[in-house]
């Protein structure tokens, strides 16, 4: 625990950064208390648009969590030794992202005090039940793996857990896609391409974020590791844009009423951002990781969920405009995630300084 304690303390700039994050989280807690007191009426959600930013952000962060597989799989299954210093970062990022995703579920509930009803009255027909199990299981797996990785070379039991964590990572985002992709009454989400597209966008956003974090923390991951992360990001982003275009084709060529109706200027704008980010990635721009990350945070975290609700099944177009309270709570959860990432990355860094990195067998 001394490693953890040391990570909480640092230079002057570091202390300011941490203080700012604590303040944002504290402000978010106060806003959430207000929301709990007055109800979700303080958000921009409505009868027609029953889910908004909270559920969108939840979806986005499940993707970031799942993306740890983009470093864990090459390192442990294919012995890509270049990833020796980033693999721990991937696991740390997964921990912080699952926590953020669960927080987004929590703040979205009308009766958070009854959350345990999901376990007290298990409902196997509900994907939300499975998603919560998958996410908490994934969190536990990554905590165990990250702690073990810091302790030394992987033991046999640890290796088995690593092998389990790979399909488990895929499962959390697949189940999250199934939350939406199985609803007969929501044509925008009712697509077999949703889970593949979720995975593709997750595998683009994870490496992009790892590159950005290595820059921000001045963490020396090694040039080859960064080059490979970019490669994974670019291929995954290409697959994501390709799958998005497949959706557009089916929606518009089929001419089925209600399919194309969900494509609003916001959807096109978001699609434009993704295309621009892909262009930057293909052009090997230095800004590509930031663009990929931002465009996917918008597409999955902001646009995807409201677009499924607008128009409503009865054809009503109810605009969704997030409120300041909602934005404040979202910002606070991002800050909580950043806080966790900062501390966990410092732990990883101090470990890397202390000992020689182990290699996969």
């Amino acid at each position, binding site marked *: 625990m001394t490693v953890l304690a040391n990570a909480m303390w640092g230079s002057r700039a570091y202390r300011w950064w941490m203080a700012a994050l604590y303040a944002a989280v504290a402000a978010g807690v106060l806003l959430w208390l207000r929301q709990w007191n007055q109800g*979700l*009426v303080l958000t921009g959600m409505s009868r027609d648009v029953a889910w908004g930013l909270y559920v969108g952000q939840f979806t986005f962060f499940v993707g970031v969590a799942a993306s740890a597989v983009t470093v864990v799989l090459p390192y442990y299954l294919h012995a890509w030794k270049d990833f020796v210093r980033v693999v721990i970062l991937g696991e740390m990022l997964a921990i912080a992202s699952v926590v953020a995703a669960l927080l987004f*579920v929590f703040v979205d509930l*009308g009766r958070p005090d009854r959350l345990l009803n999901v376990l007290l009255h298990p409902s196997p027909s*509900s994907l939300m039940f499975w998603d*919560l199990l998958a996410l908490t299981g994934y969190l536990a797996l990554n905590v165990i793996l990250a702690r073990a990785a810091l302790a030394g070379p992987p033991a046999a039991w640890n290796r088995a857990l690593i092998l389990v964590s790979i399909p488990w990572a895929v499962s959390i985002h697949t189940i999250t896609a199934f939350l939406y992709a199985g609803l007969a009454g929501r044509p925008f989400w009712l697509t077999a391409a949703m889970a593949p597209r979720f995975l593709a966008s997750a595998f683009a956003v994870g490496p992009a974020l790892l590159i950005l974090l290595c820059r921000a923390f001045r963490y020396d991951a090694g040039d080859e590791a960064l080059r490979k992360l970019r490669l994974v990001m670019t291929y995954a982003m290409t697959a994501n844009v390709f799958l998005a275009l497949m959706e557009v084709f089916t929606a518009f060529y089929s001419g089925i009423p209600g399919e194309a109706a969900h494509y609003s200027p916001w959807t096109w704008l978001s699609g434009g951002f993704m295309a621009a980010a892909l262009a930057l990635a293909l052009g090997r721009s230095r800004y590509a990781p930031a663009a990929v990350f931002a465009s996917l945070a918008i597409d999955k975290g902001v646009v995807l969920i409201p677009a499924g609700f607008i128009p409503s099944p009865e054809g009503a177009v109810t605009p969704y405009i997030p409120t300041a309270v909602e934005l404040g709570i979202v910002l606070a959860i991002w800050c909580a995630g950043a806080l966790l990432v900062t501390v966990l990355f410092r732990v990883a860094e101090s470990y890397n300084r202390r000992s020689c990195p182990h290699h996969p067998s």
Partner: protein
Amino acid sequence: MKITRQAFLALLAAAARAFSKPRRMAMAIDLSKCWKDRGCTRCAQACHAAHNVPRIPDRRREIKWIWEERFENAFGQESAGPAVAGAPVPVLCNHCEHPACVQVCPTGATFKRESDGLVMMDEHRCIGCRYCMAACPYGARSFNWSDPRSFLRTLDPAYPTREKGVVEKCTFCNERLARGQQPACVEVCPFKAMVFGDAADPSSAIAQLLRTRHAFRRKPELGAGPNVFYIL
């Protein structure tokens, strides 16, 4: 042990009584009767008064158990010819055979009652995740975005109120059915446009109506099996 033919038949009869066929409550709405007065909203008023459904000024956060939709919005643009386009259609929870809301509910707070097929709602178990609202293809569900009690002008003490943070919807008036009454909307309709009863009982009025008249349902292509039928 030997069993006589007579005893065997008696046992069968007892079993048939014990495991009686479940009822399937259904409603048929005769739109030509309903349209005798296109401005009439008495079904909605009676329902909302009987169940303490608040009238919330912010339309985006309204709560409604039964309301009217334009024909083309209830049945789809291509089902509405010029004769019916724009006409009001009363819509409510369809108490589906395969309710998507029940399938997705993570706590069993909404469930299908075995004995009569009513899709019920336990507001004390609901965690307010609104997954059912995302799943319902008929927009039948309302969420209490704020405390509903502050919007109640009159209060019927015979029926419970709800609190903020939970979902609610039409219950086919299970509390009235238990007393042997018809649902409030059926009872109040001045044109007797709504017929309600056990569709599984061939001798019931609703079963006879559905046998003799062509009835249609909302979004049959989704396979939800709505138990609210429309006749025109």
